[in-house]
Protein backbone atom coordinates (compact mmCIF):
# COMPACT_ATOMS: atom_id res chain seq x y z
CA UNK A 1 0.00 0.00 0.00
CA UNK A 2 1.35 3.44 -0.94
CA UNK A 3 1.65 6.32 1.52
CA UNK A 4 -0.93 8.45 -0.26
CA UNK A 5 -3.41 5.57 -0.12
CA UNK A 6 -2.75 5.00 3.57
CA UNK A 7 -3.20 8.72 4.27
CA UNK A 8 -6.51 8.74 2.42
CA UNK A 9 -7.84 5.53 3.98
CA UNK A 10 -6.96 6.64 7.51
CA UNK A 11 -7.98 10.27 7.02
CA UNK A 12 -4.50 11.49 7.95
CA UNK A 13 -3.37 15.09 7.78
CA UNK A 14 -0.05 15.38 5.98
CA UNK A 15 2.44 17.79 7.58
CA UNK A 16 5.18 17.47 4.98
CA UNK A 17 3.70 17.71 1.49
CA UNK A 18 7.07 18.93 0.25
CA UNK A 19 8.78 15.61 0.91
CA UNK A 20 9.90 14.36 -2.46
CA UNK A 21 10.61 10.76 -1.49
CA UNK A 22 9.44 7.77 -3.43
CA UNK A 23 5.67 8.23 -3.28
CA UNK A 24 5.20 5.01 -5.17
CA UNK A 25 7.07 2.88 -2.63
CA UNK A 26 4.99 0.15 -1.05
CA UNK A 27 4.65 0.39 2.72
CA UNK A 28 4.70 -3.18 3.92
CA UNK A 29 5.79 -2.87 7.54
CA UNK A 30 4.91 -0.80 10.53
CA UNK A 31 6.01 -0.21 14.12
CA UNK A 32 4.44 1.50 17.10
CA UNK A 33 6.44 2.78 20.06
CA UNK A 34 6.96 5.93 22.09
CA UNK A 35 10.43 4.94 23.25
CA UNK A 36 12.72 6.20 20.53
CA UNK A 37 15.59 3.96 21.64
CA UNK A 38 13.23 1.05 21.01
CA UNK A 39 12.31 2.48 17.59
CA UNK A 40 16.00 2.69 16.70
CA UNK A 41 16.48 -0.92 17.65
CA UNK A 42 13.39 -2.47 16.10
CA UNK A 43 11.60 -0.34 13.52
CA UNK A 44 11.66 -1.89 10.02
CA UNK A 45 13.42 0.03 7.22
CA UNK A 46 10.99 1.42 4.68
CA UNK A 47 8.17 1.15 7.20
CA UNK A 48 5.83 3.52 8.98
CA UNK A 49 6.09 4.48 12.67
CA UNK A 50 3.09 5.28 14.85
CA UNK A 51 4.09 7.30 17.90
CA UNK A 52 3.06 9.90 20.45
CA UNK A 53 6.55 11.41 20.63
CA UNK A 54 6.76 14.72 18.80
CA UNK A 55 10.28 15.63 19.92
CA UNK A 56 12.71 16.68 17.19
CA UNK A 57 14.64 13.46 17.79
CA UNK A 58 11.83 11.53 16.11
CA UNK A 59 13.21 12.70 12.78
CA UNK A 60 16.81 11.76 13.51
CA UNK A 61 15.65 8.34 14.69
CA UNK A 62 13.29 7.86 11.74
CA UNK A 63 16.04 8.85 9.34
CA UNK A 64 18.54 6.52 10.99
CA UNK A 65 16.05 3.66 10.95
CA UNK A 66 15.28 4.50 7.29
CA UNK A 67 11.57 4.85 7.97
CA UNK A 68 9.40 6.17 5.16
CA UNK A 69 6.87 7.94 7.35
CA UNK A 70 5.77 8.79 10.87
CA UNK A 71 2.15 9.02 11.99
CA UNK A 72 1.61 11.05 15.16
CA UNK A 73 -1.36 9.56 16.98
CA UNK A 74 -3.83 11.21 19.32
CA UNK A 75 -3.81 14.43 17.33
CA UNK A 76 -0.36 15.37 18.57
CA UNK A 77 1.33 17.88 16.32
CA UNK A 78 5.07 18.50 16.32
CA UNK A 79 6.61 21.97 16.24
CA UNK A 80 7.37 23.57 12.89
CA UNK A 81 11.13 22.84 13.14
CA UNK A 82 10.33 19.11 13.32
CA UNK A 83 8.50 19.32 9.97
CA UNK A 84 11.34 21.31 8.42
CA UNK A 85 13.86 18.66 9.51
CA UNK A 86 11.58 15.90 8.23
CA UNK A 87 11.40 17.52 4.80
CA UNK A 88 15.20 17.82 4.76
CA UNK A 89 15.54 14.16 5.71
CA UNK A 90 12.84 12.94 3.33
CA UNK A 91 10.58 11.55 6.05
CA UNK A 92 6.85 12.08 5.56
CA UNK A 93 4.88 13.15 8.63
CA UNK A 94 1.17 12.70 9.28
CA UNK A 95 -1.21 13.40 12.14
CA UNK A 96 -4.18 11.26 13.09
CA UNK A 97 -6.82 12.27 15.62
CA UNK A 98 -7.18 8.57 16.47
CA UNK A 99 -5.15 7.02 19.27
CA UNK A 100 -2.28 4.61 18.68
CA UNK A 101 -4.38 1.47 19.07
CA UNK A 102 -6.88 2.57 16.45
CA UNK A 103 -4.24 3.79 13.98
CA UNK A 104 -2.35 0.51 14.21
CA UNK A 105 -5.56 -1.48 13.90
CA UNK A 106 -6.50 0.31 10.73
CA UNK A 107 -3.00 -0.05 9.26
CA UNK A 108 -3.14 -3.74 10.04
CA UNK A 109 -6.53 -4.03 8.34
CA UNK A 110 -4.95 -2.45 5.25
CA UNK A 111 -2.31 -5.19 5.21
CA UNK A 112 0.61 -3.35 6.83
CA UNK A 113 2.43 -5.92 8.95
CA UNK A 114 4.56 -5.84 12.07
CA UNK A 115 7.99 -7.39 12.51
CA UNK A 116 6.67 -10.80 13.44
CA UNK A 117 3.76 -11.19 11.05
Amino acid at each position, binding site marked *: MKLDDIARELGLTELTPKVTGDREAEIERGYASD*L*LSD*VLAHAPAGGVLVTLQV*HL*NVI*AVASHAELAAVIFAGGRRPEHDVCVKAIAEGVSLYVSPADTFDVVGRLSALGVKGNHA
Partner: protein
Amino acid sequence: MTPPAIVERALAEGLGMIAVCDHNSTLNSAAVQEAAGARLCVLAGMEITTVEECHVVALFPDAEAAQAAGAEVGATLGQVDDGYEAFFGEQRVLAADGSERARETLALATATPLDVDAAVRLVHDHGGLAVAAHIDRRSFGVIGQLGIFPADAGFDAVEVSRHVAPGSPDEAQFAVHGLPVVHSSDAHFQCDIGAARTFVHCERPTFAELALAFAGARGRSVGDA
Protein backbone atom coordinates in the same frame (compact mmCIF):
# COMPACT_ATOMS: atom_id res chain seq x y z
CA MET B 1 12.78 9.88 54.96
CA THR B 2 12.70 12.96 57.16
CA PRO B 3 14.97 16.01 56.91
CA PRO B 4 16.96 15.15 60.08
CA ALA B 5 17.36 11.51 59.00
CA ILE B 6 18.51 12.51 55.51
CA VAL B 7 21.10 14.89 56.92
CA GLU B 8 22.41 12.39 59.49
CA ARG B 9 22.72 9.66 56.89
CA ALA B 10 24.49 11.97 54.42
CA LEU B 11 26.96 13.08 57.10
CA ALA B 12 27.55 9.47 58.16
CA GLU B 13 28.28 8.64 54.52
CA GLY B 14 30.86 11.43 54.43
CA LEU B 15 29.05 13.47 51.80
CA GLY B 16 29.79 17.18 51.56
CA MET B 17 26.85 18.15 49.38
CA ILE B 18 23.47 16.64 48.60
CA ALA B 19 20.51 17.80 46.53
CA VAL B 20 16.86 17.31 47.48
CA CYS B 21 15.03 16.52 44.26
CA ASP B 22 11.43 15.47 44.80
CA HIS B 23 9.49 14.63 41.66
CA ASN B 24 8.05 17.85 40.20
CA SER B 25 8.23 19.59 43.57
CA THR B 26 10.58 21.77 45.59
CA LEU B 27 8.47 21.97 48.75
CA ASN B 28 10.80 19.88 50.93
CA SER B 29 14.12 21.49 50.00
CA ALA B 30 14.14 24.31 52.53
CA ALA B 31 13.30 21.99 55.43
CA VAL B 32 16.32 19.79 54.69
CA GLN B 33 18.51 22.89 54.34
CA GLU B 34 17.29 24.04 57.76
CA ALA B 35 17.88 20.61 59.29
CA ALA B 36 21.44 20.64 57.92
CA GLY B 37 22.36 24.13 59.03
CA ALA B 38 26.06 24.68 58.39
CA ARG B 39 26.92 21.00 58.69
CA LEU B 40 26.16 20.00 55.12
CA CYS B 41 25.51 21.81 51.84
CA VAL B 42 21.97 20.97 50.75
CA LEU B 43 21.00 22.12 47.27
CA ALA B 44 17.36 22.85 46.57
CA GLY B 45 16.44 20.79 43.53
CA MET B 46 13.65 19.05 41.68
CA GLU B 47 13.33 16.11 39.32
CA ILE B 48 11.08 17.27 36.50
CA THR B 49 9.21 14.72 34.40
CA THR B 50 8.92 16.03 30.85
CA VAL B 51 6.14 15.31 28.39
CA GLU B 52 8.43 12.75 26.72
CA GLU B 53 8.70 11.08 30.16
CA CYS B 54 12.33 12.09 30.50
CA HIS B 55 13.62 13.02 33.93
CA VAL B 56 15.48 16.30 34.24
CA VAL B 57 17.27 17.01 37.52
CA ALA B 58 17.20 20.69 38.38
CA LEU B 59 19.63 22.21 40.90
CA PHE B 60 18.95 25.75 42.06
CA PRO B 61 21.16 28.43 43.62
CA ASP B 62 18.85 28.84 46.63
CA ALA B 63 15.50 27.81 48.08
CA GLU B 64 13.75 30.91 46.74
CA ALA B 65 14.72 30.21 43.14
CA ALA B 66 13.69 26.60 43.65
CA GLN B 67 10.30 27.59 45.05
CA ALA B 68 9.64 29.86 42.08
CA ALA B 69 10.57 27.14 39.60
CA GLY B 70 8.58 24.59 41.58
CA ALA B 71 5.51 26.83 41.47
CA GLU B 72 5.83 27.10 37.70
CA VAL B 73 6.06 23.34 37.32
CA GLY B 74 3.27 22.77 39.84
CA ALA B 75 0.94 25.04 37.88
CA THR B 76 1.07 22.53 35.01
CA LEU B 77 -0.02 19.54 37.13
CA GLY B 78 -3.46 18.22 37.92
CA GLN B 79 -4.87 17.33 41.34
CA VAL B 80 -4.59 13.88 42.91
CA ASP B 81 -7.70 11.77 42.74
CA ASP B 82 -9.08 8.92 44.83
CA GLY B 83 -6.61 6.09 45.05
CA TYR B 84 -3.60 8.18 44.05
CA GLU B 85 -1.93 7.97 47.46
CA ALA B 86 -2.59 4.26 47.74
CA PHE B 87 -0.68 3.73 44.50
CA PHE B 88 1.99 6.44 44.50
CA GLY B 89 2.37 7.01 48.23
CA GLU B 90 1.76 9.94 50.54
CA GLN B 91 3.08 13.31 49.36
CA ARG B 92 4.10 14.75 52.69
CA VAL B 93 5.57 18.20 53.06
CA LEU B 94 7.81 18.10 56.11
CA ALA B 95 9.24 20.64 58.53
CA ALA B 96 12.92 20.67 59.48
CA ASP B 97 12.18 18.54 62.56
CA GLY B 98 10.47 15.90 60.43
CA SER B 99 6.92 16.74 61.45
CA GLU B 100 4.29 16.93 58.74
CA ARG B 101 3.39 20.46 57.63
CA ALA B 102 1.00 19.61 54.81
CA ARG B 103 0.02 17.14 52.13
CA GLU B 104 0.71 18.07 48.51
CA THR B 105 -2.46 17.63 46.47
CA LEU B 106 -0.88 18.07 43.03
CA ALA B 107 -0.31 14.80 41.16
CA LEU B 108 3.49 14.92 41.34
CA ALA B 109 3.94 11.45 39.85
CA THR B 110 2.53 12.48 36.50
CA ALA B 111 4.39 13.97 33.55
CA THR B 112 4.35 17.72 33.04
CA PRO B 113 3.41 19.14 29.61
CA LEU B 114 6.93 20.60 29.35
CA ASP B 115 9.16 19.10 26.68
CA VAL B 116 12.85 18.55 27.42
CA ASP B 117 13.91 21.84 25.87
CA ALA B 118 11.26 23.78 27.81
CA ALA B 119 12.19 22.07 31.08
CA VAL B 120 15.87 22.95 30.65
CA ARG B 121 14.88 26.53 29.77
CA LEU B 122 12.69 26.78 32.87
CA VAL B 123 15.58 25.61 35.06
CA HIS B 124 17.99 28.10 33.46
CA ASP B 125 15.43 30.92 33.76
CA HIS B 126 15.58 30.42 37.52
CA GLY B 127 19.37 30.41 37.59
CA GLY B 128 19.58 26.65 37.95
CA LEU B 129 21.62 23.83 36.48
CA ALA B 130 19.90 21.17 34.38
CA VAL B 131 21.15 17.60 34.53
CA ALA B 132 19.95 14.82 32.23
CA ALA B 133 18.97 12.22 34.84
CA HIS B 134 20.16 8.59 34.86
CA ILE B 135 20.88 8.50 31.13
CA ASP B 136 22.03 4.88 31.40
CA ARG B 137 18.52 3.74 32.32
CA ARG B 138 16.00 2.51 29.79
CA SER B 139 13.14 4.25 31.53
CA PHE B 140 12.88 8.00 32.08
CA GLY B 141 16.39 8.75 30.77
CA VAL B 142 16.68 11.06 27.76
CA ILE B 143 18.48 8.47 25.64
CA GLY B 144 15.99 5.74 26.43
CA GLN B 145 13.03 7.99 25.69
CA LEU B 146 14.47 9.98 22.78
CA GLY B 147 16.86 7.47 21.22
CA ILE B 148 19.66 9.99 20.82
CA PHE B 149 21.05 12.45 23.37
CA PRO B 150 19.36 15.83 22.70
CA ALA B 151 22.56 17.85 22.32
CA ASP B 152 20.69 21.09 21.62
CA ALA B 153 18.59 21.03 24.78
CA GLY B 154 21.31 22.83 26.73
CA PHE B 155 21.96 20.42 29.60
CA ASP B 156 24.77 21.36 31.99
CA ALA B 157 25.68 17.79 32.93
CA VAL B 158 24.56 14.20 32.54
CA GLU B 159 23.89 11.86 35.43
CA VAL B 160 24.41 8.12 35.53
CA SER B 161 22.86 5.75 38.02
CA ARG B 162 24.70 3.79 40.66
CA HIS B 163 24.93 0.89 38.19
CA VAL B 164 27.62 2.70 36.21
CA ALA B 165 30.96 2.53 38.00
CA PRO B 166 33.19 5.62 37.96
CA GLY B 167 36.06 5.17 35.52
CA SER B 168 34.39 2.23 33.79
CA PRO B 169 34.00 1.84 30.01
CA ASP B 170 30.28 2.26 30.64
CA GLU B 171 30.92 5.69 32.07
CA ALA B 172 33.14 6.63 29.13
CA GLN B 173 30.30 6.10 26.66
CA PHE B 174 28.23 8.71 28.51
CA ALA B 175 31.08 11.23 28.50
CA VAL B 176 30.95 11.59 24.73
CA HIS B 177 28.43 14.40 24.92
CA GLY B 178 31.09 16.80 26.14
CA LEU B 179 29.30 17.31 29.46
CA PRO B 180 30.47 16.38 32.94
CA VAL B 181 29.22 12.99 34.13
CA VAL B 182 27.86 12.95 37.67
CA HIS B 183 27.08 9.88 39.73
CA SER B 184 24.07 10.14 42.02
CA SER B 185 22.29 7.69 44.27
CA ASP B 186 18.83 8.84 43.14
CA ALA B 187 17.94 7.83 46.69
CA HIS B 188 14.27 7.05 47.16
CA PHE B 189 14.98 5.50 50.56
CA GLN B 190 17.28 6.55 53.37
CA CYS B 191 19.50 3.49 52.91
CA ASP B 192 20.22 4.56 49.30
CA ILE B 193 21.89 7.81 50.35
CA GLY B 194 25.57 7.62 49.48
CA ALA B 195 25.11 4.59 47.19
CA ALA B 196 26.72 6.71 44.46
CA ARG B 197 28.69 9.92 44.73
CA THR B 198 30.50 12.42 42.57
CA PHE B 199 33.86 14.00 43.34
CA VAL B 200 33.88 17.70 42.66
CA HIS B 201 37.16 19.60 42.65
CA CYS B 202 36.29 22.97 44.12
CA GLU B 203 37.11 25.34 46.95
CA ARG B 204 34.01 24.71 49.02
CA PRO B 205 30.73 22.83 48.63
CA THR B 206 28.40 25.48 47.27
CA PHE B 207 26.07 25.83 44.30
CA ALA B 208 28.32 28.49 42.75
CA GLU B 209 31.35 26.21 42.96
CA LEU B 210 29.38 23.31 41.50
CA ALA B 211 28.32 25.51 38.59
CA LEU B 212 31.98 26.37 37.95
CA ALA B 213 32.90 22.68 38.14
CA PHE B 214 30.17 21.76 35.62
CA ALA B 215 31.54 24.43 33.30
CA GLY B 216 35.13 23.31 33.92
CA ALA B 217 35.94 26.91 34.81
CA ARG B 218 38.65 28.42 37.03
CA GLY B 219 40.30 25.11 37.75
CA ARG B 220 37.13 23.49 39.08
CA SER B 221 36.10 20.15 37.65
CA VAL B 222 34.00 17.06 38.11
CA GLY B 223 35.75 13.75 38.12
CA ASP B 224 37.97 11.22 39.85
CA ALA B 225 38.82 11.37 43.52
